[in-house]
């Protein structure tokens, strides 16, 4: 399992590399000249212009710029220097990331805590008034954009009722509205998914058997039914997490939360492209990590998937082992291409190699 996790994390590297290349390339074609952003529109000599371009590393072609960017990231852990503030992007991101990520995780927790029980109740009491109300509410909420909800919530809870603050992030009360706006749309989705996933298993034979054995109904639902219904639910949680992180870009902007999302929007209007690339890469990395986490959760939920991972590792082990001296090389090269026969062939090869001396 650990091996599989490590392998999955390593597999993230090429994707992350791709994300950086793509986002950097897109930013390369953004309107405006970064050197002018730094120097101001007028009042500089050509020499100053060239020097600044050189200092920013913009006097080389796009592939070289990307290479330098990656080199900086790997060797120094830097994401470049902000064109607008002149500060290190990494520094600012590190300062802001906990806020955005914290709200993202908090929203996801709220999402899970609220929508999974709602979905279960809805499924258990299928076709009741409660189920109907939840279904209708779920469809309606899924069609409400978070940013509009944010405006209406500010109007109602901050301006009319004066219960909750509308901007900033100093007390726990400040978290309520942003987290609510982030998660409400997703709550609807997840509750629906939980409901339909539960409905599929709730009539299964093993659930009936458990009931017939006299197991308590609550235990049947949580241990027997829910556990088998969890896979699609986990998948949706992963997808919704990505939605929450994306949506937070707009939500943070509305509530003036000093996170990465609000900085990203400011970076676009300031033409601060290094900041834009940096924040996008960090947010994407974080999203990927969370999706990976949900993938790994599959194994904890479903022993069949876990067994598959483990047998996969076991099967590939002979490939990783170096060939024994004198063992036929052909067997090993064949092993790389085909997982199933590899165990056989290279195993036999190693066996032979071991038998020779």
């Amino acid at each position, binding site marked *: 399992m650990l091996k599989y996790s490590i392998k999955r994390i390593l597999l993230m590297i*090429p*994707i*992350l590399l*791709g*994300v950086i290349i*793509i*986002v950097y390339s*897109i*930013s390369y*074609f*953004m*309107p405006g000249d970064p050197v002018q952003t730094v120097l101001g529109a007028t009042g500089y000599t050509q020499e100053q212009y060239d020097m600044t371009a050189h200092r920013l590393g913009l006097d080389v072609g796009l592939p070289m710029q990307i290479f330098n960017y990656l080199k900086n990231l790997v060797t120094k852990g830097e994401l470049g220097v902000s064109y607008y503030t002149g500060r290190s992007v990494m520094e600012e991101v590190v300062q802001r990331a906990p806020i955005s990520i914290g709200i993202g995780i908090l929203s996801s927790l709220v999402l899970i805590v609220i929508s999974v029980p709602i979905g279960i109740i809805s499924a258990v009491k299928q076709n009741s008034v409660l189920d109907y109300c939840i279904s209708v509410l779920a*469809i*309606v909420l*899924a*069609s*409400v*954009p978070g*940013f*509009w909800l944010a*405006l*209406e919530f*500010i*109007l109602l809870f901050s*301006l009319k009722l004066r219960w909750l603050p509308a901007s900033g992030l100093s007390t726990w009360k400040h978290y309520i509205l942003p987290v609510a706006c982030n998660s409400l749309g997703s709550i609807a989705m997840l509750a*629906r998914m939980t409901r*339909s996933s539960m409905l*599929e298993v709730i009539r299964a034979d093993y659930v009936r058997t458990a009931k017939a054995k006299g197991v308590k109904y609550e235990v049947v639902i949580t241990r027997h039914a829910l556990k088998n219904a969890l896979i699609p639910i986990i998948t949706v949680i992963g997808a919704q997490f*990505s*939605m929450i*992180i*994306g*949506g937070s*870009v*707009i939500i943070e*902007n*509305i509530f003036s939360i000093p996170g990465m999302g609000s900085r*990203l*929007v400011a970076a*676009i*209007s300031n033409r601060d492209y290094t900041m*834009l690339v940096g924040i*996008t890469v960090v*947010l*994407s990395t974080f*999203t*990927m990590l969370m999706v990976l986490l949900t993938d790994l959760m599959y194994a904890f939920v479903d022993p069949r998937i876990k067994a598959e991972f483990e047998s996969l590792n076991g099967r590939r082990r002979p490939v990783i082992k170096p060939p024994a001296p004198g063992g036929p090389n052909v067997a090993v090269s064949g092993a790389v291409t085909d997982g199933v026969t590899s165990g056989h062939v290279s195993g036999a090869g190693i066996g032979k190699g071991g038998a020779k001396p």
Partner: protein
Amino acid sequence: MKKQAKRHGQLYEIVKRFSKRKIAVVAFFVLVVMLALCLGAPIFAPYDYALQDPFNTLAMPSWQHPFGTDGFGRDIFTRILYGGRNSLLISLFSSLISVVGGGIIGAISGYYGGKTDNVIMRLVDVFMAIPGILLCVVISAALGTGPWQTCAAVAIGGIPGGARILRAQVLALRKQEYIEAAGAYGSSDMRIVLTHVVPNCLAPVIVDTTLRLGMNIMMISGLAFIGLGVQAPHAEWGAMLNSGREYIRDFWPLITFPGLAIVISMLGFNLFGDGLRDALDPKLKT
């Protein structure tokens, strides 16, 4: 002739199944009315969308201005209709581009498999790793503001998703006997894909398109809301909401009505899409 009669029969079945879902039918009619009102904005709108009235700014809803007027004294109802024309058309075009573009990529990937599939899918993985809205924001920042740019940004952002859906469909179909049979009697790859594979995976793609239409409306208004996308003097729902933030303390209509327009259209597409899914393929589950 016989073939045509059969086609008619299938369509009839679909319509019959669809009409059983009352909510979906209502959603369909709401969408039709909304589309008609928005696309016919020059006919139905009581005012010009850019007509300013400096003596009547931020007027509350009244008989003259059913939804009130904005900060420049422009009629909000009129601007919602024109804004809807922008939102709906951009959403329609971008969805079609995503589905067709993504579909072509997905079909190639799924049909040929092997290395082609690997390369394309890894590229799709990279795009999918970036949260959807973030990708649209970044592309939109590069392309600049304006309706066409927004359309392109949202469309490009949706292509990887479209590719995944069709690829999964094609992969499921590729091993079917009739595909093998078509290959055996010498059909070209192009012909097999176009006449055998694609028609058989249309149902999920159509449903995806409908749901995407709703999703894209949110994307488009979200982009406009943060100052990318469609901008003044053009009307756009998200941009209207953004301009309403300035007056949020004492003028509610400007942030409420455009938002309701977004919600109603999204709800319409979502419910219609759900109904369509059940009607097109009873085997598919929600």
